């Protein structure tokens, strides 16, 4: 068993499952938004705002937002532990990896708070 503490769910299986489920949610959300834009060519602000005011849409959007954060973290974490490592870059690999992980975490957290604010204002 290899130990890891910065991945999303402690277990490889849970990360893998979360990655798959969030991908499906993001796909459904993207398809829905694309379909909505195409189906409403002369969309105005009021209609757009009304769409996001509905409870179902809020749940869907919040799910997509959380999915983005989880999906991005798992992906970013995998990439940083593949390429930004001591094995690949020597000592500075560790520093670069930590900086990238911390920066990524801050950015995703910002998106999360900001996204919630946009959705619920």
């Amino acid at each position: 068993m290899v130990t890891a503490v910065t991945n999303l769910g402690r277990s490889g299986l849970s990360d893998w499952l979360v990655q798959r489920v969030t991908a499906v949610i993001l796909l459904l959300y993207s398809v829905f938004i694309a379909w909505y834009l195409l189906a409403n060519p002369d969309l105005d602000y009021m209609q757009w705002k009304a769409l996001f005011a509905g409870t179902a849409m809020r749940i869907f959007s919040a799910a997509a937002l959380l999915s983005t954060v989880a999906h991005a973290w798992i992906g970013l974490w995998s990439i940083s532990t593949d390429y930004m490592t001591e094995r690949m870059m020597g000592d500075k690999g560790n520093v670069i990896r930590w900086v990238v992980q911390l920066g990524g975490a801050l950015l995703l957290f910002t998106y999360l708070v900001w996204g919630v604010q946009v959705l619920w204002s």
Partner: protein
Amino acid sequence: MLQVSVYRYNPSKDDEPYMQDYQFDTEGKDLMVLDVLEQLKARDTSLAFRRSCREGVCGSDGLNINGKNGLACITPLSTTVKNNKLVVRPLPGLPVVRDLVVDMSLFYQQYEKVKPYLINNEPAPAIERLQSPEDRAKLDGLYECILCACCSTACPSFWWNPDRFIGPSGLLQAWRFLADSRDTAKAERLSDLDDPFSVFRCHGIQNCVNVCPKGLNPTRAIGHIRNMLLKSAT
């Protein structure tokens, strides 16, 4: 004349690895790549490579031949040579000891991690532990692995994390014991594998399947392990 280019590196003499070119007369025969290396070695005894059985059984001569991993002894020139060129390098991703000889320690460490032996703590029967023909058939396509390392050293995930990702070869063996009806250590085996590296660094690129000289399918075995983990944990 076949143009042969061989990776050379003798750490006690050379500062850096280099490619050495040879002209080789096949006399119109479709030799195996190993035959070519043997004849080159007869000419130049400093050339180092591993081999033993010369018939695809021992797994010693896994090499990178014209960019693809394979066993030199069962790779005919006709299947690999294009434009009259043969380029032979050591297996990628492992430290080179000398010329075409790599240090396989990391590869074996991963193999060791999966406990590649039958675990059964029930009292041993008088003669032997029996298995039905159907259960025995589940081991086909798994037990044939000769640990040549062609697959693991073709796997990008193994290149980046050879100390943490078990790699296709070790995972094929992990599944070989998980799939064995006589093994009673399934739960321990599974919990040893459920971290983000051991199994889950596999991204299904299938380079392993593409190169296995025994025609085995590590990607499928990895999928079975994942499903088994999923069944036991959800």
